[in-house]
């Protein structure tokens, strides 16, 4: 990829100028936390006209993981817990995994699920399977690999979330007002743009799938404006995303998982928005192996993450924001994760 092209100030400024000609007030939601971060990182929000409001959505896997997950993981004594980095600082009911580790729990941060599988050669290991469609194929592959290796020390805690059902849940909520979605680039690379066709068909608003460079994002916003009166799903990220998505990745996912309900922190239980491990691979299902129940407890009740995740309030509107809740002392997951809205607003827009 030609990074310089996608970051060229002249080009970006030209598109921004065109965006400034649009006068109607509109609200677009960037679904994906990486977009929220990129928008903050490049200071794009400040360069947009006031009538174009960007709000952040539920697309941060750590933020939508219920607090009960942390409590359940802390209970798993004498087992190695392998997780992606961010989760270790998320507060559970009274502890983080980071603290549990300091007190002796064997908690490892890994960069890939295969690393967790490797750990299981030495010790009983649970990999915490959080993430959206982007991370799921790699984890499905790891479960297949564990099967090939006949590894009985390895299991995955399936906490996966699917983006389209979450968008559906947002749109049927009367309090949520959105004129269009900036749709996630990486997730869409797996599921394809067709997965969002229900949005214009059922709800009469459009969306643009876009990448993470500043030019991608401003082009996404421009296309969003252009199609506002004839809503459709536009692919601005065609260098990575196709209509059908990645067939091989999708096949691996459905080989290992079947669609099930999922509990989203802040959004509650959403039908068909998660994945269960199929019975053929149940020996790798940590839910069964350790009899884990994931419930929808919210952690600190003053935290407004649930309204932030639905785009109902901006992070600044939470009374704890930047006062009691900071990255040094996060109260909710939205302030912890490198993709969390509150963390992004604290870091870039305070």
């Amino acid at each position, binding site marked *: 990829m030609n990074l310089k092209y996608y970051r060229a100030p002249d080009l970006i400024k030209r598109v921004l100028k065109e965006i400034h000609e649009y006068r109607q007030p509109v609200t677009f939601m960037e679904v994906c936390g990486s977009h929220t971060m990129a928008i903050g990182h490049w200071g794009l929000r400040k360069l947009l006209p006031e009538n174009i409001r960007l709000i952040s959505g539920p697309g941060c896997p750590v933020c939508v993981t219920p607090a009960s997950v942390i409590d359940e993981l802390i209970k798993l004594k004498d087992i190695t817990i392998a997780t992606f980095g961010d989760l270790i600082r998320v507060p559970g009911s009274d502890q983080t995994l980071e603290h549990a580790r300091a007190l002796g729990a064997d908690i490892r941060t890994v960069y890939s699920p295969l690393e967790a599988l490797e750990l299981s050669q030495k010790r009983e290991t649970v990999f915490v399977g959080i993430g959206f469609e982007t991370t799921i194929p790699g984890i499905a592959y790891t479960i297949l690999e564990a099967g090939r290796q006949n590894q009985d020390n390895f299991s995955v805690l399936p906490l996966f979330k699917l983006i389209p059902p979450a968008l559906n849940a947002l749109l049927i909520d009367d309090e949520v007002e959105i004129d269009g979605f900036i749709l996630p680039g990486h997730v869409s690379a797996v599921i394809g743009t067709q997965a969002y066709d229900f949005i214009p068909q059922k709800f009469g608003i459009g969306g643009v799938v876009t990448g993470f460079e500043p030019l991608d994002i401003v082009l996404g916003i421009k296309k969003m404006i252009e199609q506002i009166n004839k809503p459709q799903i536009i692919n601005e990220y065609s260098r990575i995303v196709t209509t059908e998505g990645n067939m091989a990745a999708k096949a691996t996912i459905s080989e290992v998982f079947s669609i099930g309900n999922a509990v989203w922190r802040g959004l509650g239980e959403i039908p068909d928005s998660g994945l269960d491990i199929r019975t053929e691979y149940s020996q790798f299902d940590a839910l069964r192996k350790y009899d884990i129940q994931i419930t929808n407890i919210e952690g600190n009740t003053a935290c407004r993450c649930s309204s932030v995740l639905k785009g109902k309030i901006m992070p600044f509107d939470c009374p704890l924001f930047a006062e009691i809740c900071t*990255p040094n002392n996060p109260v909710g997951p939205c302030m912890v994760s490198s993709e969390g809205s509150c963390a992004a607003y604290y*870091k870039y827009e305070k």
Partner: protein
Amino acid sequence: MKNDIITLGYGSGAALTRQLIREVFVSKFRLPTLDDAACIDNHLTVTTDAYVVNPLFFPGGDIGKLSITGTVNDLSMNGSVPAYLVASFILEEGFSINLLKRIVDSMQKTAEEAGVQIIAGDTKVVEKGKCDGVYITTTGIGFLPEGIDLNVKNIKAGDRIVVNGSLGDHAVAIINARQKLGLDPAPISDCAPLREVIEILLNTTKLRFARDATRGGVATILNEIYEDTGLGVILDETSLPIKDSTTVLCGLLGLDPLYLANEGKLVAVVSEANDDMLIQLKAHRYGQDSAIIGEVTKDVNGVYLRTALGSLRPLLMLASDPLPRIC
């Protein structure tokens, strides 16, 4: 302090580390400064540092090389000439003596390049599982030439910020090696002794302050400068020397090169960034990509980056190590 136990975050070099030092050590030991090195009687400089890197060998260096460069760099940053080192080893039961010899060879070679002599040491062996193969602590002694005073309090509005090359190289090399990401060509650590770079700065401009940009990276040092002086800093994004491969990896993992560790890069604050300085820095093997990256100013409170699009983005002090993103 949170939950009253040490978590890994307290060793990150970022805000939590500073908080720990302030609340636990400075208050009890009545330390005069928070600097890495202390100067005794205006002449003798002493510093100490422990090295716990994993993996022990990585492209561009190893724990032995690091244990010399890190400590001589801490001595050099206040203008001292590093002279002697004391090395202490904690070895894990079962560690290969051949590997230890390789590490010691690398230490000796680097010490020769840096012009220091290893004069004493200590060895302890701990039970298997009690450490990661080998930990090394080196204590350095240097001499501060007369008339040199590189103190953070000397920094003034209008001063320029200089770095001696591309940022984040050490961290990226370690992430690639540790996580077996298989980047090709493998990124190389910048691990290097910086005394000669300091010398060039001392000879060509009025050097006010210098700090090697190890854990926490450039952004953390600039935030410390802001905390200590109350003066703001604005960096210019277009002038930051960052390798394309680093930019791409950081983009994928959601990391910011300005917060990543370096082992051969310093942040210098100079009163005047002249051509002579840049020419000489660029001619040195540890300064080829040197750049003036920003300015000290009263116009802002805090540390900011002027992006290529012209907006100002805050660069806050991180609480702890930056974490890679999931998605």
